[in-house]
């Protein structure tokens, strides 16, 4: 073979190899219908979505692809058009999201609650308290370690509003007891567990958290700790590519009697973690 011919052959083989790799690599489009759901790490970590979504897929043929980030980030993702539906838990943000035209409507789905966990030694002495404001007040005066999500998530925003109710402003000298992990619930609980610190967590994440060590559930039941979730369809008038029909189908399913019953039936270690809200709202 002449030198020139050989080069041509080598070049074509190379091209074929690249094409083969590229086509294998790039032909990754998911088969069938799918929507992108931006939700929170707490919802994901609880296992609820892993339980619900396969059932929805079986019944509707629509695959729900979950990107689990903090509430703040989930909303910003949706505002950039990178998600079709969001499932989050911070009412003021949700209302603003709809008000600014990004979401069609806020629809209540379920609620769980927040709890305060902390070291068994309980230096702030808050075990068993039902008034979360007082409990946090004691944590602050004892200057015991407290780990915050610090990540603009629904949980973080709730935590900040609880501190605000105490008229407590974080100051520069609070750094020695108030720590911000900037991470999801599980990672934050890890930090709290290692540091023997107090922490605000949603109940579902707490129950499923596998590295509790000496952490215990200390405070629960205050109405201020109620944690309602809403589902919102990203407005297709904002972004034409939003899969509005499938997204609406998912939302309708979630708030249907069937969907709501499934949510109520979800249990971890014998505990029901999420309480359906849609039917009660519908009844109103």
């Amino acid at each position, binding site marked *: 073979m002449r030198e020139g011919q050989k080069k041509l052959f080598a070049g074509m083989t190379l091209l074929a190899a690249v094409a083969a790799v590229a086509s294998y690599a*790039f032909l990754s489009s998911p088969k069938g219908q799918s929507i992108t759901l931006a939700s929170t790490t707490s919802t994901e970590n609880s296992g609820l979505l892993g339980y619900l979504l396969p059932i929805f897929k079986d019944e509707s043929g629509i695959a729900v692809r979950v990107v689990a980030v903090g509430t703040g980030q989930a909303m910003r993702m949706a505002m*950039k058009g990178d998600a079709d539906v969001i499932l989050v838990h911070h009412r003021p943000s949700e209302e603003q999201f709809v008000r600014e035209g990004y979401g069609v409507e806020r629809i209540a789905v379920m609620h769980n609650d927040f709890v305060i966990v902390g070291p068994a030694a309980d230096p702030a002495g808050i075990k068993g308290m039902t008034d979360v404001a007082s409990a946090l007040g004691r944590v602050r005066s004892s200057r015991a370690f407290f780990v915050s999500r610090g990540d603009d998530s629904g949980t973080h925003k709730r935590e900040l509003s609880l501190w605000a109710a105490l008229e407590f402003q974080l100051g520069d000298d609070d750094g020695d007891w108030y720590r911000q992990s900037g*991470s999801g619930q599980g990672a934050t609980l890890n930090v709290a567990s290692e540091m023997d610190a107090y922490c605000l967590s949603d109940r579902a994440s707490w129950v499923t958290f596998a590295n509790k060590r000496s952490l215990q559930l200390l405070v629960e039941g205050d109405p201020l700790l109620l944690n309602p979730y809403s589902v919102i369809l990203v407005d297709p008038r904002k972004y034409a590519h939003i899969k509005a029909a499938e997204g609406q189908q998912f939302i309708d399913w979630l708030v249907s009697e069937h969907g709501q019953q499934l949510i109520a039936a979800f249990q971890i270690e014998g505990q029901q973690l999420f309480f359906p809200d849609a039917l009660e709202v519908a009844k109103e």
Partner: protein
Amino acid sequence: MNEFSNAFRTALQLLVEMDPGLFEIVLLSLRVSLSAVILAAVFALPLGAFVALTAFPGRRSVVILMNAMMSLPPVVVGLVIYLLLSRTGPLGVTGLLFTPTAMIIAQCVLVFPIIAALTRQTVFDLHEEYDEYLRSVGAGTWQKITTLLWDGRARLLTAILAGFGRAIAEVGAVIIVGGNILHSTRVMTTTIALETSKGDLGMALGLGIILVLIAVIVNTAVVTIGGGASRRTV
């Protein structure tokens, strides 16, 4: 120590049970990282050789840049590509965000400088050795490139394996551009991150052991396949 024995037991269990979830994750990891490395190598090898052999104005700066980009933080690469691929970003129409393709692109960007820079160094050294001879027998630039690349194949293979190591082990880029979506863009490293964040440290470590095992298998395979060549390589 308890975490470690727990981890080994978990790893063994996963392997023995041939857990299909694990299989899916491992397959995707390999698919993403191998694709990224091959794609990067196809362009990085000739580019590295070219920069080594051709004098052009500003070459020194290009070499410094190539070497510096070996230290690109994966999470920054992930962020930049996320912004590019986001629906509101310049490449949003491609709809590639949160797909394995986006992950391949991100890892390709990470791996490319490693292979290019190491290729450049290898070819440069070989060039010193062979320059007079190659000029004497009248080799053109392309012929020089192919000759030197083949002659340096042992070192270049190591560079490619280094690229693969970087790709299969990183989590910052793939988690941002992939979204760690179950059954879709979840790979070994993002699963380890997830399990760690759920506090399931035994599982996380177990998966980590499997990841290292896979790296060993891939490296062994490469060395064995290249075994014939390595006998003739000194």
